[in-house]
């Protein structure tokens, strides 16, 4: 039955391609409708994202965040869970980073503080995700709703802590004190400088290596370990998993722990890499983009890296576009993001009947020939 396999393979490629194409056609139509030349806009965005060193640095810096949140959504998805709480988990991850950096940063050297900060970001993010995970597994409360609620709870908690506890006396701005130098990640331009390569200064820092390492780790975990297999089995069919001797509850909590930990790592890039202090709302938007990244990347690490790069380029290119064209703001990127989630996610199967009919006719003609 090679034709069926070919058929399925074609579906796997054709459907996402058609979906992405639709999203971009609608974007083009929207640009035309608001009086912007799509070709010129596309050129500015492409140049802004990849045309010069600082732009490339920004693109990859955004990409880093999206890899983390995209992986977070994907791991939960493989266990059949929808984690919309990446936003809050990243935010709370920032609390972990800040506690380590502010508490230990001035006493310990960088090679101790940085790993501790990374661990703290992951642990805090994981803990924030574990509560909805536990409630789903043991009390049956719907994880979508609880993770939404936990986003708002995280936001309230962090505003309280930043205003009342963490901001130094006499400072009006709701932000923590600056971190010690030992909590600062090496910047990409400095790292390249060690090898005698010059690169313009940008927010890109060492955490992109961490993000890529996480991609490999997630791939190994999901497809090469016993637990990863158990986790995916629960996602495919929880009842079958029970018969196979897998406890779905454990896997749900495990998936959420990993998912939240990955989301928490956004704080490493943002706080230890760029801001060097805990600031209000630093995770804004990254968690939600993770949903789009994961959907586009078909929940696979390689796909996620590519989708994260696309969104990184969109973010940086969008910023450039807003700078070049006074009538455009970065909200345009938000629209594109929404369209991608709509066409690649919600309307995933829109073309399925048509593509199926087309392929069937094609194979029938072939059989007759």
């Amino acid at each position: 039955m090679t034709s069926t396999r070919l058929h399925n393979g074609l579906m796997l490629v054709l459907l996402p391609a058609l979906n992405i194409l639709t999203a971009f056609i609608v974007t083009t139509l929207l640009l035309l409708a608001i009086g912007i030349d799509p070709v010129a806009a596309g050129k500015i965005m492409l140049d802004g994202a990849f045309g010069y060193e600082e732009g490339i640095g920004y693109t990859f810096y955004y990409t880093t965040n999206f890899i983390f949140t995209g992986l977070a959504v994907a791991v939960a998805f493989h266990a059949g869970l929808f984690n919309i709480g990446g936003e809050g988990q990243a935010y709370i991850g920032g609390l972990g980073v800040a506690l380590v950096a502010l508490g230990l940063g001035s006493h310990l050297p960088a090679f101790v503080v940085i790993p501790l900060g990374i661990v703290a970001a992951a642990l805090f993010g994981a803990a924030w995700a574990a509560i909805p995970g536990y409630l789903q597994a043991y009390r049956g409360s719907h994880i979508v709703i609880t993770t939404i609620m936990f986003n708002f709870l995280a936001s309230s908690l962090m505003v309280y802590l930043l205003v009342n506890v963490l901001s130094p006396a006499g400072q009006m701005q709701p932000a923590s004190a600056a971190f010690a130098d030992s909590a600062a990640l090496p910047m990409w331009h400095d790292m390249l400088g060690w090898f005698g390569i010059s690169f313009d200064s940008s927010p890109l820092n060492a955490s992109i290596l961490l993000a890529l390492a996480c991609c490999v780790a997630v791939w190994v975990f999901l497809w090469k370990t016993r637990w990863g297999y158990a986790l995916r089995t629960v996602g495919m069919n929880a009842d079958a998993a029970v018969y196979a001797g897998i406890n779905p509850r454990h896997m749900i909590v495990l998936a959420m722990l990993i998912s939240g930990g990955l989301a928490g790592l956004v704080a490493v890039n943002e706080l230890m890499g760029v801001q060097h202090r805990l600031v209000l709302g630093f995770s804004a938007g990254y968690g939600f983009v993770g949903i789009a990244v994961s959907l586009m990347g078909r929940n696979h690490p390689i796909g996620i890296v590519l989708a994260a790069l696309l969104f990184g380029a969109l973010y940086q290119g969008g910023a450039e576009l807003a700078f070049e064209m006074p009538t455009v703001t970065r909200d345009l990127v938000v629209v594109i993001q929404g369209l991608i989630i709509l066409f690649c996610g919600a309307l995933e199967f829109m073309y399925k009947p048509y593509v199926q009919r087309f392929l069937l006719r094609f194979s029938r003609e072939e059989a007759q020939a």
Partner: protein
Amino acid sequence: MSEHFSLLISTLDATLRVSTPLIFAALAGMFSERSGVIDIGLEGKMLVGAFMAATVTALSGSVWLGLLAAIAASVLFALIHGFACITTKGNQVVSGVAINILASGLTAVLALTWFRRGGSTPTLANEQRFMALEWPFAEQLADVPVLGALYSELLSGHNILVYSALLLVPVSWWLLYRSRFGLRLRAVGENPKAVDTAGISVAWLRYRAVMMAGVLCGFAGAYLSTAQNAQFIRDMTAGQGFMALAALIFAKWKPFSVLFACLLFGFLDAVAVRLQGVSLPGMGEVPVQLIEAMPYLLTVILLAGFIGKARPPKAIGVPYVKER
């Protein structure tokens, strides 16, 4: 009249104002979810409603045309959601997320393109808004102790949308529990197969429920931009759609409980504003953020099964596939 009493009246008055969009949106969610379609997109539909209401009112000068436009825009978004969830059998949560993000971006882009005011619409004059309605004799009765204040301060002096929202609660109850449509709607959310077997179209029923959600979110949005405020401001829903969703779940998907949940959440909001920086006797200063977080905290505790049991409609989130 004592100071505390007038403070109480003004807090309750604010509660009603804050609760109104929540009531509209939560009832919207109720119709959708009772039919088996999850509605995470309340926030986005409110936002497009708010934007279109302010835009059309500013351009036409008629707040009623604005309301119509809000309903039309919100229903359009509801239909996208319906098409994704019912016709193409896509993921309902993903669709809701898409609606929210799309609404947030699109309203900001269009507001900037059309008005060039940094994402806001022009400020509406008072006669272009839904203004307070004075009840008969409100002024004369204001001096009557207790009852006078209740009548002239609390009951009188709201706009028509506030009263509509309150009236909508018994109407929704009747529709859901006493009409044939409501019976079928509840059935399709619990056991769509049975409804299909009875020869009733599952898809058409769900489409109607989703469109009703669109209409009600349109009201909620119009309230935000043409009654409570006098213009559209970017992302002005600020999480109220999610708050309504929390209220809906807190109310266990029942109309009168929805009213009480919305009033409770609205009350918490009104109290939080008044407690800002106030030191209470014996407790010290209560963190405002704690009161603001209460609705979400309460909903999580309820979902965890510690206050009763929130049982969603059985077929919620599951696309209906006819047996072949």
